[in-house]
């Protein structure tokens, strides 16, 4: 399949209120995989448990029966080698999608992701490319603890040569997965388990969402909140409550962090003069740091108040729910930051 032709024509923008078919988040991702597997024989799906009875949260359930175990197959744990296997298959002309339950296990594959896959195009002067998709879903809650809940986007955002995708809506999860499979570069998709509860508008058929194009989830004149992944939900919830107090929040969902839609962030801050970045990750050296640095470099004159970051404290995720409640920032923290940035504490 010539993805470039198929996709660009079908490019759609997000229309939240659009009436139409509703799908669950999981079904939206599954549909993207099915379309890719049906339309392009180079595509295959691998990962621990993708052909088992749970089917990766239901996303890959029974895809092995439909497409065969040669195209949808379980893998040994061996995350580092299997990432290299995906890279090698891509060099041989395939388009692998390598799925992981948890991003924590990607740390075992950092050699192949960072030293190898991300560098192959540049290091060999553009003479070769690595079309692989690495997908993982962040866990949260129920005592998942320090090694099953990590949000590692800050690490991946640091690495040249990777794409980094973090959707928040079923529409985006499907469209961006299709774009990722069609892309000729290594793409990391970090999903969030709590987003899987959603249902939303999802068009049928193939459509793409361009990398590096964010969306305004809610318009407002007082504060810009750039919210990542699940934090979009929390930010919108906070904005709703603040609306009742006469405070208008603009919520930006970048959808992809690498490339990042700088323009949508800068033009929003130009309007509001105030910036809060709400990320699911750690604070230090994280996505929030990068986005506020961007605004400091290119939009400093727009700012009426110091920038703020809503992020997890720099500690591993605790297991006890009493500590989890403090570890994970949410609506209340966002509201508190909004009031502080406006000086109405």
């Amino acid at each position, binding site marked *: 399949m010539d993805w470039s032709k198929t996709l660009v024509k079908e490019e759609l923008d997000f229309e939240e209120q659009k009436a139409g078919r509703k799908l669950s988040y999981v079904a939206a991702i599954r549909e993207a995989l099915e379309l890719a597997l049906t339309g392009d024989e180079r595509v*295959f799906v691998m990962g621990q448990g993708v052909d088992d009875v749970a089917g990766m949260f239901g996303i890959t359930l029974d895809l092995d029966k439909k497409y065969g175990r*040669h*195209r949808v197959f379980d*893998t*040994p744990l*061996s995350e*580092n*080698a*299997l*990432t*290299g*296997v*995906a*890279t*090698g*298959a*891509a*060099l*041989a*002309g*395939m388009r692998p999608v390598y799925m992981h339950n948890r991003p924590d296990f990607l740390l075992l594959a950092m*050699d*192949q992701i960072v*030293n*190898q896959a991300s560098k*192959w*195009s*540049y*290091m*060999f*002067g*553009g*003479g*070769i*490319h690595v079309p692989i998709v690495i997908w993982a879903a962040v866990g949260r809650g129920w005592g998942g603890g320090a090694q099953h809940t990590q949000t590692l986007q800050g690490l991946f955002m640091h690495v*040249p*040569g990777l*794409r980094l995708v973090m959707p928040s809506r079923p529409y985006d999860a499907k469209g961006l997965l299709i774009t990722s499979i069609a892309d*000729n*570069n290594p793409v990391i998709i970090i999903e969030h388990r709590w987003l899987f509860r959603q249902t939303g508008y999802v068009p049928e058929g193939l459509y793409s969402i361009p990398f590096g194009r964010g969306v305004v989830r809610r318009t407002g004149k007082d504060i810009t909140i750039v919210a990542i992944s699940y934090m979009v939900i929390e930010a919108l919830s906070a904005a709703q409550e603040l609306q009742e107090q006469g405070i208008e929040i603009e919520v930006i969902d970048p959808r992809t962090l690498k490339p990042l839609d700088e323009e949508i962030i800068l033009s929003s801050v130009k309007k509001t003069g105030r910036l809060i970045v709400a990320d699911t990750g750690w604070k230090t050296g994280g996505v929030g740091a990068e986005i506020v640095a961007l605004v400091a470099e290119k939009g400093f004159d727009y700012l009426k108040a110091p920038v703020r970051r809503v992020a997890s404290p720099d500690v591993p995720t605790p297991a006890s729910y009493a500590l989890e409640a403090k570890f994970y920032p949410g609506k209340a923290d966002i509201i508190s930051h909004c009031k502080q940035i406006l000086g109405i504490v």
Partner: protein
Amino acid sequence: MLNYRINGIPKEVLRELYRMMLKIRKVELKIDELYHEDEMKTPVHLCIGQEAVAAGVCAHLNTDDYVFSNHRGHGHYIAKGGDVKTMIAELYNRETGCSKGRGGSMHLIDTSVGLLGTSSIVGGCIPIATGAALGSVLKKDNRVSVAFFGDAAVEEGVLYESINFAMLKKLPVVYVCENNFYSVFSHLSKRQSKDDIYRRFEGLSIPGYRVDGNNVIEVYRVAKKAIDNARGGGGPSFIECRTYRLRDHIGTGSGVEVGYRTQEEVDEWAAKCPVRNFERFLVKQNIMTASEIDEFAAAIDREIEEAFKFAQASPLPDGDKVIEYLYQ
């Protein structure tokens, strides 16, 4: 003198094995000769002394078969049929280099002959070669993939992980370990509890072979078995080729001056030189005459001279294009 069991191998193959080893040797010696000029600003890991492995293995590969290599990859690149001009241009940091000056000596590529990359992270290419073999199975194009790596790569977990997967899927991949006994300055005996690399993966039931890596005929015979088996659907094999680099880990010294090995040890291996021993054998057996050898050498010298001229006359990359080629 090494013992060469050439029965059944056509003369043309013997001559070609020799020509390829000579070509690798001469390219490396030319780099060795000019490196002090400091015009090749790249860390070179010369494979002088190890030529028989690359030549003996690649002799069985088709142009579209895959090869992946490591930091000491000049020989593999040449043996797979890589363009010498663009390799030398890469060493001279030029835009005309095989990696457009973005790679250097440790990152050679020539996709037109199936050499899809070389990594300087020890063991880095092993799973990638395994994945290319998976790609070949899925595409049913009957290609074989070869991973060349050193003895230190055996210490990386990714080799175990890769062999397990290759055995599970019966992939057409051949793992070729060039055991030259040194990882930088550290001898094998300081790094591995046993000197039995070829048996290390018996638990995974992969066929394991040990050969004299300086004897091109022994390498050729074992590689044929492994590659034929892979192409026939029999799955992967592992070959330990025991050899020696006559130069230091990096650059043009012998390592003796550094003090981690002795002149006696280097001399002992120099006496087992894969190129000169085979050359003497071919002449003694009347397979090649001295004048034919001179013709080979002269033709190779011409090619090398052209390659260096091409490289030296080529433009450097444009500094303003430093971010080019990151994404496609």
